[in-house]
C-alpha cells in the first residue's frame, strides 16, 4: 500500500487494474493508514513538492529536500528486502558501489549521466545477483550478520583499492549530471523525479501478484513454498532490484555532494536506513517515507544537541521494537485501539 498508487494510476489510466481493487488495503492490519494512502493526500503532497521551489525557499531548504529524496529512495529500496522478511545491515555498501561506478563512469570514461545511472543500477544489482542466492537462504539474525560483514568487506575494498577508488580520500570533483543540473532548482526536480518514479514503481510492485507473493513469503516461507511460490528465486529478484535502486540513490548522492569517500557508505549509513524502516514502519511503503522524514528532519531541529538526538533515536527504537512493531505508520491505528499491541 502506498500513497502514490493513485498518482501512478492517474498517469496510467489505461491500466487494467480496477480502481477499487488497487486501493484495497494490504492484508496486514492497518486500516487507519487509509488516510495516508488516500488519493487526495498523495496528490496534494506530490503537488506541494513540485511547487516548493516557487515558494521562494532558500538553497538550504532545497538542499535538505534533495537529501531527503535520495535517502527516501535508499530507504524504500531497503524496504523491498525488508518486506521479504530480511533485514540487510549492509545496504549502504550497494549505494556506495553505485556512487563510485557513476562517478568513475562520468569522470574517467566520459559517459553521459543517463548511461552512468544505468551502470550505477547494474553494478550493485549484478553483485546482488552473485551473493543473493547464497545469503538469502539464511534466517533472520544470520542474514543481518552476513550483510553487515559484507558491507564491511565492500568498504574495505573502497579503502584499499586506491588506484580506482582513491582510497580513503575518495573521489573529489564529481561533476553535476550536466551543467544545467549544477543549479539547485534543476537538481531538486531531478531528484524529485527519480524519487516519484521509483516509489511509484515499488508501489505498483507491491500491488501486483508479486507483491502478494512477497507478503506470503514474509508471513510464512514454508507455506508459501508449498503454495507454489518460487521462494528463493523471488527473494533474489527482489534483492537484485533493491540493490540496483540503492545504486541509483548512491549515484545521485555522488553527483549532488560532488565528492564520495568510503566513510559515506559505511555501517553507520546502513544502520540509519534500517532504523528508518523499522521506526517508520516495516509493513508498508509509507513506513520508509515517514521514517526518512523523521530521520532527516529531526537532526535539523535538534542541531546543537547531537548527543541528545542519538539518545532519542535509541529510545524510539526500543519503544518501537517493544510495542509498535509496525512503526510510525501504524501509530494511528494503535492510538485508535487505545495502545493495543501492534501488527506483529
Amino acid at each position, binding site marked *: 500500500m502506498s500513497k502514490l498508487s493513485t498518482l501512478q494510476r492517474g498517469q496510467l489510466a489505461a491500466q487494467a487494474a480496477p480502481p477499487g481493487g488497487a486501493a484495497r488495503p494490504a492484508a496486514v492490519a492497518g486500516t487507519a493508514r487509509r488516510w495516508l494512502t488516500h488519493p487526495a493526500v498523495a496528490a496534494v503532497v506530490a503537488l506541494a513538492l513540485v511547487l516548493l521551489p516557487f515558494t521562494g525557499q*532558500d538553497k*538550504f531548504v532545497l*538542499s535538505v529536500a534533495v537529501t531527503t529524496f535520495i535517502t527516501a529512495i535508499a530507504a524504500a529500496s531497503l524496504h523491498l528486502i525488508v518486506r521479504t522478511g530480511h533485514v540487510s545491515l549492509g545496504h549502504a555498501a550497494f549505494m556506495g558501489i553505485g556512487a563510485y561506478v557513476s562517478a568513475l563512469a562520468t569522470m574517467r570514461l566520459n559517459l553521459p549521466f543517463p548511461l552512468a545511472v544505468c551502470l550505477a543500477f547494474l553494478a550493485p544489482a549484478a553483485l546482488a545477483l552473485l551473493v543473493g542466492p547464497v545469503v538469502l537462504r539464511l534466517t533472520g539474525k544470520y542474514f543481518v550478520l552476513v550483510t553487515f560483514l559484507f558491507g564491511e568487506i565492500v568498504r574495505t575494498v573502497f579503502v584499499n583499492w586506491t588506484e580506482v577508488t582513491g582510497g*580513503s*580520500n575518495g573521489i573529489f*570533483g564529481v561533476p553535476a549530471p550536466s551543467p544545467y543540473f549544477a543549479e539547485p532548482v534543476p537538481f531538486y526536480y531531478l531528484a524529485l523525479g527519480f524519487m516519484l518514479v521509483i516509489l511509484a514503481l515499488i508501489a505498483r510492485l507491491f500491488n501486483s501478484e508479486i507483491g502478494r507473493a512477497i507478503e506470503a513469503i514474509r508471513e510464512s516461507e514454508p507455506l508459501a513454498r508449498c503454495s507454489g511460490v518460487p521462494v528463493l528465486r523471488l527473494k533474489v529478484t527482489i534483492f537484485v532490484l533493491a540493490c540496483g535502486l540503492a545504486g541509483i540513490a548512491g549515484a545521485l548522492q555522488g553527483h549532488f555532494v560532488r*565528492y*564520495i569517500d568510503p*566513510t559515506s557508505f559505511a555501517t553507520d549509513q546502513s544502520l540509519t536506513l534500517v532504523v528508518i524502516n523499522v521506526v517508520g514502519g516495516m509493513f508498508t511503503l509509507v513506513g520508509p517515507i515517514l521514517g526518512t522524514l523523521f530521520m532527516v528532519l529531526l537532526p535539523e531541529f535538534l*542541531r546543537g544537541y547531537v548527543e541528545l538526538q542519538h539518545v532519542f533515536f535509541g529510545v524510539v527504537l526500543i519503544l518501537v521494537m517493544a510495542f509498535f512493531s509496525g512503526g510510525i505508520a501504524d501509530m494511528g491505528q494503535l492510538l485508535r485501539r487505545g495502545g493495543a499491541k501492534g501488527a506483529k
Partner: protein
Amino acid sequence: MSSRALSKFKLATGMLCAAAAFAAAAPAGAQETLKIGVIASLSGGGTAWGQGLQRGVQIAADHVNEEGGLKIGGKTYKLEVIAFDDQYNAAQAKTAADRLVNREQVKVIFGPVGSPGALGSLPVTQPAKVLQFVDGYAPSILKNEWKGAYVFRVNNSNLEFSEPIVEWLRKANPQAKKVGMIAPNDATGQVAVPLLADAYKKNGFEVHTEYYERGTKEFTPLLLRMMAQKIDVFELNSNAPGEAGLLIKQARQVGYKGVIIQSGGAGIDELIQIAGPLAKGVLKYDVIDESLPRVKPFITLYHQKYTGLVNGLAPMYYNAASIVFEAMRRADSIDTTRVRDQLERMDDYDSPILGKVAWTGEKEYGVKHQLLHTFLIKEVQDGKGVVKASITPQPQQ
C-alpha cells in the same frame, strides 16, 4: 505550585517577556552581529578534534567581544559563533555548509576537521566566495577547480614538517638505519605516510610500513612484525593520540627498546595519559610551548571556560581566528575578497600563538594558502612534554 508562587511566576515571566520585547525593539546599530561559522565533528570518534576547533574559535571570538567587539568600517560587530556538526562525513558537511552559507549567511567558516568534511563543504563555500579555514591533508583542498581562492590551511601539513623533522632526527641519531611506520589507512594516513616515507628515504633511511584499520587497538602482532625487521626508529606519524599512546605502550611491552617519534598530530598530553610511564623518552611534533609567556593567556582562558585536556586544535584555531579577525580589521571590510587579499599579505603579523605569519604552497597547490609556522619537537620526561628543539621550516623554493 501554590497560588502565590504561581502568580509570582507569572509576574516574573511577564517581566521577562517585556524585557525581551524591549531588547528586540532596541534601536538597530547599537551593535551589529557578525556570524562566524564553524563546521566540525562534534559527535562520534572525531569529537575531540572538533571540539578543540570549535573551542579555539569560540575563545578567540569571546576575546574580541570582551574588548568591545570587532571594529570595521566605522561599525562595531559583536561576534557570534555558529557551530554545526558534520560527524566527520562529507554529506553532513555539505548540509552544514549549506545551512551556514545559505541560511545563516556567514562569510567565514572555520573547519571542518578532516578531508571528508573539508571536501564535502568546498563545493558549497567556494562558489559562494565564503572564506574557509580547513584542517585536512588532502591536496585537493587547496588544489581544485576554484584554484583554492577562498580556502586556507592554518596548520602545518605533512608537507611542511616532514623533511625538517627527519633531518633533525638524522642529526640526532646518525647511526639509525631502519624506520618502521604503523599508520591507519584513513584519509590522513594514506596521504601522510608516503610523504613521510619519502622524507626518510631522502635522508638515508630504509622504510617499512604497516597499515591498519581505524578502530584497531591491539597492535602487538604488527609490532612484532615491525621488530622482526630490526628497526631503529619507530615512527608514529599521523596516528591519533589514542592509538599513538597504545602503540607506544604496546611497543615497550613487547620489548622494543629503540627510538620512538611521532612526526605529526598536535598536542602531547593525551598521548602521555594513555601510554603512562612507558611514554618516557618519546619524541613528538607539537605546535605550542605552554611555558611561553605568549601562550599562557590562552591556556588560562581555555581552562576558565572548559574542562578536560586542551586538544591540539584549540590553540591552532585560536591562532587562525585571531589572524582572520586582524585581516578584517586591516582590510576594514567584511567583503571576503578584500579580506582574502589582506590575509595573503599579512607576512608581518605576529599571531598570538604561532608567531609570524608565513604562507606557502605555490609549488604544490598553485596558491599560497598554506600556513607555514614554527613547530617544536618535544621529548616526554617525567610525564610532561619538554621542548627539545624548535624548528622553523623554510618555504620550498
